[in-house]
């Protein structure tokens, strides 16, 4: 099972597609196999794709402000479906309104995400963390 695969998508009813394209392009260039589900992806669709592909990480984006509502419960559903050790990365404008990133991070870590990223994240940094977390290094 090749863990160097990423399931990528924008969760909920969020239509912001630009960042998604860039993440796809970036990680493909870095040698990952990217399964890009595009925008408006439900939790079920993320999990289905992760099961089908055996990807090591699900990368969830939420830009439009409903992240808090949409992202809740994904970890539990993963466990229910037997994806015990899948990595969950989440990033974007995760809550409604300008909020100190620390408090956003705390909130999403508590929800069971492994790493939380702000919109100005340097993708090279993300890649380094991913190598570490997937023990590819």
């Amino acid at each position, binding site marked *: 099972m090749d863990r160097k695969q990423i399931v990528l998508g924008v969760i*909920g*009813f*969020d*239509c*912001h*597609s*630009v960042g998604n*394209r*860039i993440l796809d*392009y*970036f990680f493909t260039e870095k040698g990952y196999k990217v399964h890009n589900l*595009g*925008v*408006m992806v439900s939790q079920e669709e993320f999990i289905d794709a992760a099961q089908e592909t055996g990807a090591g990480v699900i990368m969830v984006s939420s830009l*439009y*402000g*409903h992240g*808090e*509502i949409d992202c809740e419960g994904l970890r539990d559903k993963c466990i229910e479906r037997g994806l015990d050790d899948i990595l969950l990365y989440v990033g974007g*404008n995760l*809550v*409604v*309104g*300008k*909020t100190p990133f620390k408090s956003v991070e705390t909130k999403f870590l508590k929800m069971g995400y492994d790493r939380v990223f702000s*919109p*100005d994240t340097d993708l090279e940094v993300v890649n380094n963390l991913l190598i570490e977390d997937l023990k590819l290094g």
Partner: protein
Amino acid sequence: MKNTKQNFDEFMMERSDVLKAWSTGKDVILEEGLAYQKSLDDSRNFASTMKAASRRGDTLIQPRAGVALIDEHISLLKYLENEGGADLLPTTIDAYTRQNRYNEAQSGIEKSYSAGTSLLNGFPAVNHGIAGCRRVIESLKKPVQVRHGTPDARLLAEISLASGFTSFEGGGISYNIPYAKKVPLEKSIEYWKYVDRLVGYYEDNGVSINREPFGPLTGTLVPPFISIVIGIIEGILALRQGVKSITLGYGQGGNLVQDVSAIIALRELADEYFQSEGFTDYHLTTVFHQWMGGFPENEAKAFSVITWGATVGRLAGADKIIVKTPHEAMGIPTREANAQGLLASRQAISMLYEQKLPVGPTYRREIDLIKSEVNSVMNRVLELGAGDIDDGIVPAFKFGVIDVPFAPAVCNYGKLLPMRDNEGFIRVYNWGNTHVSEEIKELHRAKLELRAHSEGRNVCFQMVTDDIYAISKGKLVGRPR
């Protein structure tokens, strides 16, 4: 018959289904809504406010704003009216309502009540229903528009127009392609004919309602001709259903010459096409959207982007400017941040109030280029529709004759790739199947080669990526680091 004004009886039949989509629909009575609209003062009418402003040569400013709960929404809009000095008010609709997910919207309202803060990214007007919406309208002095991104906005239009909103943003293309994933284009176009027909009903009965197709699309490096083609098509579809007050939009690209030229071309072309379709009894205005792509996080820098937008919008002679806020990159703005965006924009516009930008040959050349791009695409759409624009739309998107960059909709061809040239004009790198002459393609290509040369690299996708980030990183053109 689909290409002309929908028969009123058919409309009424469709209507009875539309109103069933959510419980608040049952309160909407067409004549009662009309009577309510007639009871409102003319100063609260969006259409006549736009008309008066364009006669005076004024440029009005309007924010975006919407929160989950009625009282909070009212106090937000009052603040923007009084402290921000907005000329026109918005009601931005939340993203669940945009997808007709009224159940989710309802739970968002409830969670917002208990959280004591809005957890929705807009105002769920359908759930609040006529009574709630009228409270909003009656609390304000300025005209209020519904701003959203809804492929099927029929119920939203019914409720909001009956509640005294006097302008409705969107269109069958512009509120599908950038905002939806799987809604078939033929569907959203049908839905929007309904909306336009509803507006037509109000117009026929003496209440003017302004309609505003959404010009900026994905907000990201959209070449002017694409935005203009779609604006003209949506304009024609709207006029056919009886719309009379129409405001065509354009999202700032960032280059002064290109943006000014685009607004001039937009206005001239729209009039040409509308008139060649036989329409004369309409009032056309333009709206300029301050930079719609990724913003810098730093607020001082964001103010600079906002001011540059207001500056170009005014110099271009737009009738209205949609204003961003210093919080843009971070999240839904506080009301203070929203008012700051308005105040900065107002200052720029009024310092430029009496100034006229000399528009010489450089602009004229760009205007001509945009016009020939628009004309060749429009001709192809007409061909595909065997002479009728409406019939041409779906095939045009299917074959990629019209292609919106970075759009999420699967019905968008998705091959066109834009890129900035060496002076920051948005050009096309990969045309996909977009239909323009070889000569035009050559011209774009040459401009892009110039840039590539000056950067010591080949024209490549990395440039597109760099361009997407550029303004948020403080540049216009995404040069290699």
